[in-house]
């Protein structure tokens, strides 16, 4: 059992608030990712769990025990830092065994645990090397090994993949996920990369401005974002937002996009006619229509091989379309688009909050 409970956690730097009362429940063995833009307070929250930052208000409990006043070493956690933080003068084996050495563990026991962790991470041939003799990916693995050796209740990861190149990042992403499936230890992971969050997490916590915007499973957040921030933050390319006015009622309701014409909103919104709303449409929910559809002008064509990204101008607004098929289009051409009405997300244009049910 290793749960983490965060209750009304607040953090002030002097008079400047960084976290405005955050509540998160993390179940045993859960892989939770805190995601959000720079300065949203996610790293601060993680460091508060680790004991590296003081807690101004609220409580943080690990396994039912409030840890607010405990030193980092007494919280039974292990942390992997963005810049690895390996001890430069020690070998890989010494780095991994340092915590056990300080705890007074017997030498053969340290060796056994270091060898076990090295085995999991494929570090056996590197055990006698110094950090300077390792590549970025290897250093990252040593940092994880240092965490595994301690067999903690909770692993904390602070943007561990940010310093790796794109290809290595994908590889390490899979390794961390495989590691979690193998060890089944509770993980709290901080990243600003929504793809990392979507691909690895059991549960995502989206944060902005020191507050939680939404908590849920990756697909739940993707399909049912609570507001425009969450909708725009998750997904790549990002969700398109079209501003328009609701016309008609209930089943006959339409969204008037101005020059671009009208799109049916049948059953999607229960707003009075005349209300200004913003409709969010995922790039993959738009297709090129064979007949009919809304006319648009192609601005940029970006083929990625597996799919094609189109930037188009629809009415006065620019949106992105992702097509699974290959198309022969050029900038300046006109196309007709069909929008998948069922996957519309309707938001209040004033508050940015989601409007429709479901």
């Amino acid at each position: 059992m290793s749960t983490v409970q965060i209750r009304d956690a607040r953090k002030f730097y002097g008079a400047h608030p960084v976290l405005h009362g955050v509540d998160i429940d993390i179940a045993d063995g859960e892989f939770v990712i805190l995601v959000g833009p720079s300065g949203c307070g996610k790293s601060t929250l993680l460091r508060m769990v680790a004991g590296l930052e003081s807690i101004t208000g609220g409580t943080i409990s690990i396994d039912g025990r409030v840890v607010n006043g405990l030193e980092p070493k007494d919280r039974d956690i292990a942390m992997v830092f963005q810049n690895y933080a390996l001890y430069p003068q020690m070998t890989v084996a010494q780095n991994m065994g340092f915590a056990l050495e300080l705890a007074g563990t017997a030498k053969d026991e340290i060796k056994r645990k270091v060898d076990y962790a090295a085995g999991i991470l494929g570090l056996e041939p590197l055990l006698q090397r110094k950090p300077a003799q390792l590549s970025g990916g290897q250093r990252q693995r040593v940092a994880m090994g240092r965490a595994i050796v301690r067999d903690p209740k909770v692993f904390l990861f602070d943007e561990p993949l940010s310093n790796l190149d794109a290809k290595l990042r994908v590889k390490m992403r899979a390794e961390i996920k495989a590691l979690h499936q193998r060890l089944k230890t509770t993980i709290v992971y901080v990243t600003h990369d929504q793809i990392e969050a979507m691909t690895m997490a059991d549960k995502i916590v989206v944060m902005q401005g020191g507050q939680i915007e939404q908590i849920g499973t990756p697909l739940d957040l993707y399909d049912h974002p609570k507001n425009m921030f969450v909708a725009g933050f998750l997904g790549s390319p990002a969700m398109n937002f079209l501003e328009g006015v609701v016309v008609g009622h209930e089943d006959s309701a339409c969204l008037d996009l101005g020059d671009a014409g009208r799109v049916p909103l049948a059953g999607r919104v229960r707003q009075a006619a005349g209300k200004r709303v913003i409709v969010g449409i995922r790039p993959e929910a738009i297709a090129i229509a064979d007949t009919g559809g809304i006319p648009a002008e192609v601005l940029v064509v970006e083929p990625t091989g597996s799919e094609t990204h189109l930037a188009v101008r629809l009415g006065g607004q620019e949106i992105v379309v992702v097509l699974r098929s290959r198309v022969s289009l050029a900038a300046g051409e006109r196309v007709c688009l069909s929008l998948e009405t069922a996957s519309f997300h309707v938001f209040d244009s004033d508050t940015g909050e989601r409007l429709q049910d479901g």
Partner: protein
Amino acid sequence: MTMTSASIHDNALEKPKRDWVLVALWATLALIALIWVAPFVFIVFTSLKSNAAVMSSSAFAPPVDPKFANYSGAWDRGRFNTTFFNSVIITAIKVPLGLFISAMAAYALAKITFTGRKMLLLAILFGTMIPFQVMLAPLFTLVNSLHLIDTYPGVILPYLAFGIPYQVFILQSFFRGIPKELSEAARIDGASHFVIFRRIFLPVSLPVLAALLILDFVSTWNEFAMALVLLQDRDMWTLPLGLSAFQGQFSRDYGQLNAAIVMTVLPAAIVYLIFQRYFVSGLTSGAVKG
């Protein structure tokens, strides 16, 4: 346009152009090195000449008949048995102790948050701004009132007091540059501040500690004014004070004087040669991505 394989080959064999800026830099460097080494050559050559030879030959002429007796003569006349021993005792205690105290103070000032930290740092920095010459008279009164004149502590303690602020200043700014994640990782691993200091910071700081050790050794070994005031008994004199024995009003023995200078300078040169290998950059490379 096409290029034949032969022409490509010719191009590859062409000598790179001589970089005249580089040549000029090397020439300047050699000249400066020559200027710096000249006094040393002068001292070594003179230390092996008799007084007559000093007067009759050029300063930079090598000794024709090396007079090694100058060294044994200087050793006796300067009472090097006593002064060398005193200098070794004072330097061997002061330098490592001062560095250790400075490093601990610098660690606390750089890495431990406590109220009044900035004020404390300022107070210590203030110590670097007062020239010790101004303090000589009050220093004498103070040491005298503690009955420490002509004792090792009587000179080691003031040396520490005047040496530490400068070292703290250098070390704390170096420690500040060490990524905070290193000490945070160690804290999570269960290390106390002292363990972090000893096991993480000291090894990482070897180059700067070596540099400070060399500088401090040389300045302590050669210190004259404070020793002159605080050590009045000839049996407590240090090497630089011993050298003054060669400066009689009517007697000048340049051979012996220079032999004494060589013997005084030699330990500092040896310490430099031993520790200069720690002047390697990038000792922290690999600790964090950078």
